[in-house]
């Protein structure tokens, strides 16, 4: 890991922390992506507007970055079948566990939630084991 990677990791992380703080301070909401977005599947209600606005902001960030001259490398080497299975497990798992990397791993840990600590330990462990299985066993 180079010094510039370290800097971009820390500063990117700081932006994520700032974004979560904005949503907490102004909207009184936790910036858990899976929860925010899955809430849009309910029939339209007052609550839906800020969720949609968050999602649009999230998706537009990539366009803004590219317009500013940046590029976004995405290296994805899976078959569509594996990606579909991966997406299904991520969708179902984050709802059952009530959070993903952002909700539990960042917002939850920042407020020292024991639930989020357990959740983060669980998904880090199974993700690590899955990668080990795919890369070194299969």
């Amino acid at each position: 890991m180079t010094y510039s990677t370290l800097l971009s990791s820390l500063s990117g992380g700081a932006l994520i922390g700032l974004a979560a703080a904005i949503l907490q301070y102004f909207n009184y909401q936790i910036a858990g992506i899976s929860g925010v977005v899955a809430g849009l599947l309910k029939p339209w209600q007052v609550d839906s507007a800020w969720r949609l606005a968050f999602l649009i902001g999230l998706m537009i960030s990539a366009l803004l970055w590219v317009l500013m001259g940046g590029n976004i490398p995405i290296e994805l080497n899976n078959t569509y079948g594996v990606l579909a299975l991966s997406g299904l497990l991520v969708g179902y798992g984050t709802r059952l566990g009530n959070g993903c990397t952002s909700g539990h791993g960042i917002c939850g840990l920042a407020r020292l939630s024991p639930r989020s600590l357990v959740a983060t330990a669980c998904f880090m462990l199974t993700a690590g084991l899955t990668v080990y299985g795919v890369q070194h066993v299969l």
Partner: protein
Amino acid sequence: MSYKQSVAFLIFSAFLSGLVFGLGLIVAQMTNPAKVLGFLDVAGAWDPSLAFVMMGALITLAVLQFFIKGSCKHNSGKVVQHRSIHSKIDYKLIIGSSIFGIGWGLSGLCPGPALVGVTSGLTGILVFVIAMFAGFIGFNLIHQQDKL
């Protein structure tokens, strides 16, 4: 109703939060699944980047939260509770998070980076995002009865 609570402002602040969140993921290169897999692959050429992203986010959020709490107390006389309605560690939390981890490990994609990547138009990302929504809907259908 104060300006801070007006619907238009709440929509703007949520939009801004999403935008900054996405830019953070991009700056940190967490939008690249290969980079995430490099962190998760402890037995390979381990890339600690994701740990530093989390560290940067946690420190920033914890510091800002400290001031947010102070200001909430100061303005309204009571501390705003950001607590989840769920408070106990149950099998749903453990099984659900473990299932999520398996899905995350298969591709290196989690909800935030996948949604940021949608505008790239890559078919793989679209397949993942559609399947993720199918997973959300599947959960709603399966667990309809035990919700409230």
